[in-house]
């Protein structure tokens, strides 16, 4: 039996020897940091133009994480490619011939890629936070303030979970193109639009990204957003449930279907 440490070791080799790993993770970092910094600088300059409600619920931490909307897409690409290239290249058959225990194979792969995504996510969120606070000037907050560390740490976890969720979906769909074709529009458009539509709002707030992103808010209902019927940790919990569901789905597909 291929032992779990051996599979982990092998998956680490796989992940570090393809260039897509580097560029997707770098993209996630750069996009999130740069966009967060830019918006922070902008809001700092135009703070007086904000509406009263927005000023009342101004959340410097959350503003810093504005880049997450785009940055998470790079994480989605990373997660999808980690799994999807096994299928598109046919490597999956070589891999499964070497690791007949499909559960060990899948969860080792996801553990390695997920841990890497989490690390990059944490680095991203901390860098984003400090840079954006520096740019927010007078309106900034401090890492020592109430709930701020939770939000910053949560931002990193959020990115990691998005990547793992994408891996689960890609395992279910067994195709990079299909997975990207579904996940990218979903996170970038569908989820964002539905969360602004009055009727769909109550459903959309349970989508993984909408629920999970609550962890990054320090001020409840930050920036005059809609109040959610759950708190930051429950939000992250809802997202985690989505991730678990995707992983179970992926595992069942991998276990039952012919490779």
């Amino acid at each position, binding site marked *: *039996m*291929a*032992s779990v440490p*051996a*599979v982990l*070791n*092998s*998956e680490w*080799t*796989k992940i570090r*020897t*393809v*260039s*897509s790993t580097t560029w997707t993770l770098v993209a996630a970092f750069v996009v999130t940091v740069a966009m967060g910094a830019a918006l922070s600088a902008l809001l700092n300059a135009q703070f007086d133009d904000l509406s009263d409600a927005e000023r009342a619920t101004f959340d410097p931490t959350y503003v810093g994480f504005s880049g997450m909307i785009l940055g998470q897409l790079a994480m989605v690409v990373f997660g999808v490619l980690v799994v999807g*290239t*096994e299928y598109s*290249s*046919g*490597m*999956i*058959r*070589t891999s*499964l*011939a*070497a*690791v*007949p*225990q499909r559960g060990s194979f899948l969860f080792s792969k996801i553990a390695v890629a997920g841990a890497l995504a989490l690390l990059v996510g944490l680095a991203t969120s901390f860098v984003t936070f400090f840079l954006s606070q520096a740019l927010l000037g007078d309106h900034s907050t401090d890492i020592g303030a109430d709930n701020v560390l939770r939000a910053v740490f949560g931002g990193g976890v959020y990115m990691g979970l998005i990547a793992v969720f994408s891996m689960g979906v890609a395992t279910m769909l067994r195709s990079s193109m299909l997975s990207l074709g579904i996940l990218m529009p979903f996170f970038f458009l569908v989820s964002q639009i539905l969360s602004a539509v009055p009727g769909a709002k109550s459903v959309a707030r349970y989508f993984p990204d909408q629920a999970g992103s609550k962890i990054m808010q320090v001020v409840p209902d930050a920036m005059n957003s809609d109040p959610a019927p759950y708190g930051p940790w429950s939000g992250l919990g809802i997202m985690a449930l989505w991730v678990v569901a995707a992983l179970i789905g992926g595992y069942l597909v991998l276990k039952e279907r*012919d*490779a």
Partner: protein
Amino acid sequence: MGLWRMIEAVGLTKRYGAKTAVYNLSFQVRPGAVTGFLGPNGSGKSTTMRMMLGLDRPTAGHVTIGGHAFRSLPNAPRQVGALLDAKAVHGGRSARNHLLCLAQLAGIPAARVDEVLGVVGLQDVAKKRSNGFSLGMGQRLGIAAALLGDPQVLLFDEPVNGLDPEGILWVRNLMKQLASEGRTVFVSSHLMSEMALTADHLIVIGRGQLLSDMSIKDFISANSADFARVRIPADRPEQREKLTASLTEAGGGVMPEPDGALRVTGLPLPRISDLAHASDVRLWELSPHQASLEEAYMRMTQGAVDYRSTADAKAGLQPPPPGYGPHPGYGDPAQQPRLPAEVPQQGWYAPPPPGQNPYAAAPVAPAPAAPAPVPPAAPAPAAPAAVPADPTARQTSEDPR
């Protein structure tokens, strides 16, 4: 001993929806020999091999390696090495890294990776991304992956595809060497000629069903028949009938060939000559021939070929402008006089085998009277492919081990 290296399929069946890819296949693959797995395209060879590796789940029956289903095999990569698809490699990863991640799975040291890269001759491109590899290089990489764990059971799916003659010879010797070390070597192919040179044992399938399971020696003696070709002056049809009659009377089997020659079985050459002399018939040709294994294989799988090419009628196409003659090898068969007459284009048939052959029961003379069934082209290149083996053997002193 030895039993733990045996591959055993029992009643193996695989259906994809309405299509049955493999039906009730039972056979054993023994260690210490190269077992050829032969069948036309789409006959279920790859499906069978995927089921052996636990990639596809059989609809019915089971296949075990050393008594274990592959999925429950302890440390599979150290026991079973497989080449399934040469291109099943992440193109962005270098050859060495590809092998390294496979090696790490089984706890194989990195030094072994460089070793197998040397064995397959890829050490110079080890650091290159594999998407720049040719099919032949991909095959070598796949073979390297199979050899990595020094396994006792090796499965190769069409390993010679895309290899140059030197590579083919190398694979052939490698298979034999692996088998001589007591390993179980299972090689699929759709080329009888290749199998005749490599395999000790042959398993032939068609449409997913077992057609033959015997040693290559038995296969040859059961399936290849000697015959004599007799040619008489073309302008004397009455002589032809006369000779046919006297040959038949003497107990020979006579079949006309499309170009007017006669194919005579069951009579030695001198006797044919004597009979011709006695009936006062002049002979233009009296030559000994042996039906190739390729022909025997064709006959066996004739009823089981899924994808058969037909002559290109080119309906609706303009005749080519002057100056653009028919492209060699692409025109319709009638326009190709360069094909050897020995391989007739229409009404091709193989001689009936001596002794009964349970597998050829169906069509003795092939039913498809359609112009140019697939077989004709094959036998011709088959023989030459085998011949140049020896000269190259000396040049490539490179020991595969």
